């Protein structure tokens, strides 16, 4: 069962990589000017560039070959996990990404941790008494936060915490203080969703016949919540993390650009503006694979929590 799960996700990763590589190959062809000259200029610097160097690059990379051959070659190159060189800096893409990915992972992890601190906690409090004031307050907050696109939310946080209160730096990189505002922006957006999912899961479990039966068996309070509440309510919350990974990855791109945070999303946006295709390919590929990996983790966790998912094939009723 587990291997089936991994296979499905590996297949998805393959499809994603193929899609990205194909689009980027096509993008390469649409760039204006001569490709060999461009690459030579990025490798040796515009001053040292000459016709001979460009010809050497052309031969080395096989740019004179038919398009289909070049396409196959670019796929082969990707299959060897060779991401090529940046057209702007000339450095290997993988080297640039290593540093930036680290920064982004810190941001994403902090955001996730903060959102798990806010979201499910608020959801639990709201779900204990559906319709109570905590519930209504959290609903209102959630509606408001969801109407705020992440970049607007980020700007508002900058205005309040940097420009108005002067507590935190508005942008840049260097200390944990630079990490806080972008992480908070993402975390609030994530918590707006997860708090409601938690609350609904709580309410659903509380209304479920097995919960009522647990109570009528004579179980009470904590014993009842611990034995028949927690695991059942956790299943939708964890499953929802898979969907939230979309928000997290999209949010990283937006928030990093907004806060000039030197992560992988920031690098992607810069690469697009500079039309640095190898960097675009590398960044999108890494984020895509990360997305798929997170979903694999979530799937695994769901199966741990919910025995029905493991056995759905063996038993048909």
């Amino acid at each position: 069962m587990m291997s089936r799960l991994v296979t499905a996700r590996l297949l998805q990763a393959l499809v994603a990589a193929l899609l990205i590589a194909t689009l980027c190959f096509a993008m390469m062809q649409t760039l204006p000017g001569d490709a060999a000259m461009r690459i030579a200029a990025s490798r040796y610097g515009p001053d040292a560039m000459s016709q001979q160097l460009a010809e050497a690059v052309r031969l080395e990379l096989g740019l004179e070959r038919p398009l289909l051959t070049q396409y196959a070659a670019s796929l082969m190159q990707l299959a060897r996990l060779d991401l090529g060189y940046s057209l702007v800096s000339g450095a290997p893409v993988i080297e640039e990404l290593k540093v930036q990915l680290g920064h982004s992972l810190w941001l994403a992890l902090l955001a996730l941790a903060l959102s798990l601190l806010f979201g499910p906690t608020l959801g639990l409090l709201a779900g204990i008494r559906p319709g109570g004031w905590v519930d209504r307050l959290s609903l209102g907050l959630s509606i408001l936060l969801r109407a705020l696109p992440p970049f607007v939310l980020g700007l508002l946080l900058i205005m309040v915490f940097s420009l108005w209160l002067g507590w935190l730096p508005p942008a840049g990189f260097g200390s944990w203080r630079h990490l806080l505002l972008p992480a908070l922006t993402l975390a609030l957006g994530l918590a707006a969703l997860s708090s409601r999912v938690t609350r609904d899961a709580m309410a659903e479990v509380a209304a479920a016949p097995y919960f009522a039966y647990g109570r009528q068996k004579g179980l009470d309070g904590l014993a009842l919540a611990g034995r028949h509440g927690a695991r059942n309510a956790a299943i939708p919350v964890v499953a929802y993390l898979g969907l939230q990974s979309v928000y997290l990855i999209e949010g990283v791109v937006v928030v990093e650009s907004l806060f000039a945070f030197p992560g992988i999303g920031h690098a992607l946006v810069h690469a697009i503006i500079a039309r640095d295709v190898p960097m675009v390919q590398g960044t999108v590929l890494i984020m895509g694979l990360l997305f798929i990996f997170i979903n694999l983790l979530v799937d695994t966790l769901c199966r741990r929590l919910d025995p029905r998912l493991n056995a759905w094939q063996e038993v048909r009723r």
Partner: protein
Amino acid sequence: MTPVLCIENLQIASAGQVLVDNINLRVEAGRPLTLLGASGSGKSLVMQAVMGTLPAGLDVRGHIGLDGQNLLALSPQQRRALWGRKLALLPQEPWLALDPTMPVQGQVSEVHRLIHRRSKHEAQRLTQQQLDEVGLQQAGQQYPFQLSGGMCQRAAIAITHAADCPVLLADEPTKGLDSALRDSVAARLRHEVNTGRLLFTISHDLDLARRLGGHVGVMRNGRLLEQGDAAQLLQAPQHPYSRRLLAAQPSRWPQRQSREKGDLVLQARGLGKQYGSRTLFEKLDIRLHRGQITAISGPSGCGKTTLGNVLLGLTPPDQGQVQRSAGIAPIRFQKLYQEPPAAFAPRQRLGRAFADLARLHRIPDRAIAALLQRLQLDEALLARRPGEVSGGELQRLALARVLLLQPVLLFADEASSRLDPLSQQQVMQLLLELADERGLAVLLVTHDAALAARTADQTLVLGAPRVRCGDCSTRETDRASA
């Protein structure tokens, strides 16, 4: 002192509207109580009043005595303290009431550990013993979704054994179970009575009440119409409603008179069908004639409906062939469905459905009007949507819809099994009358052996599906053998 549960002058009201009134009942050791009634009769409210699980906002009066205490005078906390200690509940549809993410063993042993505060070792030993008692010794590590409905029911019984309460409340214990299992449910509940427990059951199942014995009450519209000794009351009820209810039981229906066989409508040779690795049926020969009622019966999952669909041409057989007699238009092969609301488009008004059908096949309006009248249906129903009409009416509308097409073969797939007994009787009676009038071949798929025996000219009993191809899993029986 022998324990007694007695209900005196129970009245339940909501915002001034009396829902249940003037209930006086008594459960004694060795003399179980079964409260019979259709849904909406108020029997569930009575059980909830005993258990203490009535929805908030209901006004309850009267006296429910147990061990010299008036349960109705206790605080909600005091009542909850009785659950699992004095009062045990056998929930309806246990496959929904068991925690889907916990193995059965844990759901039994938690009663020992957390309610009776027994040691881990002791709890383990008793749990295994109680699973053995109900024949689930192998199933302790399994999750509820891996068990059949009957096994879930037995797991719930093991849980009540763990609680070991003097009073057992059984809420619709046969609901959703195969008729073949109902006997064993009754036997198990009877066993509880024999071990000295006070058993209070609510049900709509008269057979169950008869098998449980003891005391029976009949409820309707919140009133207790009559009560008395089970054997006596179910033999000769006094109240007209009880009498009608009893007469509506398929086993009490008059035996249908056999008709002359008409023309051959359809014949099948060597039919076989597999589902995954299971063989549903094989080497089956069937001939359907006009004017004849053919019943297919057997336990659920045996492939009854699949066989019907194969005969009607909706599903291709894996082996063999179905041959319709020449010269009959395809639309004269029709079907009635188990769930009447599912057979109509949910957003379409019924009048629209009939008008579209009439236009498609050039059926005059008066033909529809005449047929509706024949089926005792008010034309005003046509202004409604399927969800706004009762199940019995909707099934008769479905019958009217197919009869408009002058069918020669009608496949009724459990067409009355989801209806209450009175509606079931009415629908089946009309179906059979019209089949006779019009010389219809009827294919009746039913899990109810009594219904098949009372109505069919020939009955085909499918056995439980075989995993491997062995001997022929079907046998044809004559109606006489039923």
